[in-house]
């Protein structure tokens, strides 16, 4: 309820901003007038994360003369604050979170400085596969600092108990394995799909669509899932059928992504999550305090239509709002914060004293490889090739109207799951919404 209220607020504030941007007739606004000073200043960095180790920040201050005031705000609240501050053209922080799903909005609204003006993003691209998710109209809105992407996880013990292959390569083989687990009574409901009307259901569908060999929208935002033969349609049908055939717990109608991962997957009540979060094996399933499946859950290559499918990216980035007081100093911080060596330090490659305990998977492939080589990343050898081949959810970057589209996706897929509408009706409504939004109406 809280989440949906805040999502509604975010959508409302952003819609207002889009209207105002449209009325102004130009997105090419000049910079907010921040100072170019890069020494002897204090910048505020707002991310949904704990602060890095004090020693690391002190070292940065010593090196650059820039002091960092770190503000940790939960992700939902942070998005509301970013929208409110940008709409009011008011300073809030010098560097903030830039989520992959908001890149289109932020690019269109011109709320952030293009990072390619500050950092050599072209040189960075080869080692940061998810940079493409932050690029709109040739400009980079934010630099990814984590490498979150969607992965398939399986409880190998439950698969093996049923005599099923724990690393199926195709959707058909994966579905057959789940049916075998159910038929043999290993668990009653082997598959976790979070059918609650929330963002997690949308991203699950995107990943499943990718696995079926397609994409949701084309570069112009046109829906690619209207035909019953299309991957998006098949993915939606597969998900709803899985629920109706008893592969998914009936209670999952009201289960969100994190609830399903914590309450079902981590408790061994389901055998697999098709669209899970990269890193969950190390941070959730292998943590004794919160899991009863320690050592049993593995990442597998995403089962696809005719072989392993791609993994779609949903990383977090960091960018500089136009109202920043010290944009140049913020850029120096971002360069430092997202550098390979710094990420390797944060990830524990170079000793515990440099480790940033809650740091996610680094965005630099070379840092992830260093982690894997040192044994600091559970399942690293599986994750590296997935990260290397990961793709943006939307080919042309997330559209500026993404929040409304996502709302239509999860509302209608939830409706199809509850039986209040057919998959066909749900798909049609989602496609109509996308068409309307893409045409600007």
């Amino acid at each position, binding site marked *: 309820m809280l989440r949906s209220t805040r999502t509604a607020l975010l959508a409302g504030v952003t819609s*207002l901003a889009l209207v105002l941007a449209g009325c102004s007739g130009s997105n090419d606004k000049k910079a907010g007038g921040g100072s170019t000073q890069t020494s002897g200043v204090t910048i505020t960095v707002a991310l949904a994360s704990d602060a890095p180790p004090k020693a690391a920040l002190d070292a940065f201050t010593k090196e650059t003369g820039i002091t960092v005031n770190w503000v940790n705000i939960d992700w939902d609240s942070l998005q509301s*604050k970013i929208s409110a501050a940008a709409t009011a053209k*008011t300073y809030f922080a010098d560097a903030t979170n830039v989520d992959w799903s908001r890149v289109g909005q932020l690019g269109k609204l011109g709320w952030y400085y293009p990072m390619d003006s500050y950092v050599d993003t072209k040189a960075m691209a080869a080692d940061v596969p998810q940079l493409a998710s932050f690029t709109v109209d040739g400009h980079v809105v934010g630099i990814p600092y984590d490498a979150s992407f969607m992965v398939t996880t399986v409880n190998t013990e439950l698969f093996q108990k049923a005599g099923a292959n724990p690393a199926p390569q195709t959707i058909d083989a994966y579905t057959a394995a789940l049916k075998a687990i159910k038929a043999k009574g290993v668990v009653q409901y082997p598959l976790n799909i979070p059918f609650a009307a929330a963002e997690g259901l949308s991203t699950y569908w995107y990943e499943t669509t990718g696995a079926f060999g397609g994409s949701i929208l084309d570069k112009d935002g046109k829906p690619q899932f209207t035909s019953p033969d299309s991957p998006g349609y098949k993915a939606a049908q597969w998900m709803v059928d899985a629920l109706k055939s008893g592969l998914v717990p009936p209670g999952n109608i009201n289960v969100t992504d*994190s609830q399903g991962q*914590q309450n079902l997957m981590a408790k061994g009540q389901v055998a697999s999550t098709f669209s899970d979060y990269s890193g*969950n094996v190390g941070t959730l399933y292998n943590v004794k305090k919160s899991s009863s499946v320690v050592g049993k859950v593995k990442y597998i290559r995403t089962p696809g239509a005719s072989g392993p499918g791609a993994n779609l990216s949903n990383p977090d980035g960091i960018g500089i709002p136009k109202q920043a007081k010290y944009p140049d100093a913020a850029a120096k911080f971002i360069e430092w914060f997202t550098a390979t060596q710094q990420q390797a330090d944060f990830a524990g490659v170079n000793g515990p004293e440099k480790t940033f305990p809650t740091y996610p998977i680094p965005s630099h492939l070379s840092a992830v490889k260093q982690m894997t080589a040192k044994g600091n990343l559970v399942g690293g050898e599986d994750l590296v090739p997935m990260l290397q081949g990961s793709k943006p959810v939307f080919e042309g970057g997330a559209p500026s109207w993404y929040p409304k589209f996502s709302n239509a996706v999860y509302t209608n897929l939830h409706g199809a799951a509850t039986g209040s509408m057919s998959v066909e009706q749900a798909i049609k409504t989602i496609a109509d919404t996308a068409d309307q939004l893409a045409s600007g109406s």
Partner: protein
Amino acid sequence: MKRRTGAGRSIGVALILIWSLGPIYWAIKTSLQTEADARAKPAHYLPTNPTLQNYSALLSGNSDIAPQVRRSAVNIVIECGAATIVTVLLATLAGYAFARMRFRGRNVLFYAVLATMAFPAYTTLIPLYRIMSTFGLVNTYTGIVLVYVSGFVPLATWILHNYFASLPVGIEEAGLVDGARRLQVLWHLLLPLARPGIISTALITFLFAWGQFLFPLVLSSDLSTQPLTVVIAALQGRHVVPSTLLNAAGVLAIIVPAALALAFNRYIVNGLLAGSTK
């Protein structure tokens, strides 16, 4: 027939109690469990191995959480207390003026003040943020208190207007005849009589302010001003929700308003009903 009515009433009361107290009970129960117990299936309707570890983590743990909770608890008391005092002060003067004084445009002004209550809070968020930013009041107690006051004064004025209007005019006239000034009449004669209305207005304002989330979220940038409601929301991670910790924090957050509501519910009801009967 009477027996049927009585049974119906009992069932109705029971349903309302379950509806109202059920979620609070569940929050308290969850707050006394470990994450594993809270997520057990089938669910435990009573905490099987009750523990205070969540409260301990919130109030005295070694992590960053305890200092944040303590600081934000102080912040919320300061912000709600200051907003209540200023709101009651302004609303008392405004309520009295609208109820007793005759001046051109009185009714228009009064209904204009009341009409502001019809605006959804979201519509004023951005303008207020901009105003506060212009005056350098973002992330200050003053800024948050001023925003609360601007939001609560209309309702408080309406309640106190009704209260003053219900008092006999004769008392005031006697005071004026004896040579007292308006403010003296208000202070010495009317305020003692209106004390129940003032207390109920203060309680209602305080409770409303205590439940605020959106405005303090936007107007406060760090722990120097963030109230408890904002800090509780920040306890959840993006992919992991510590449900037992969040429930314990929620229980702590409702202690003060629940105690006030239980202790002074008569005043709250009277305040909300002021002027509804003649």
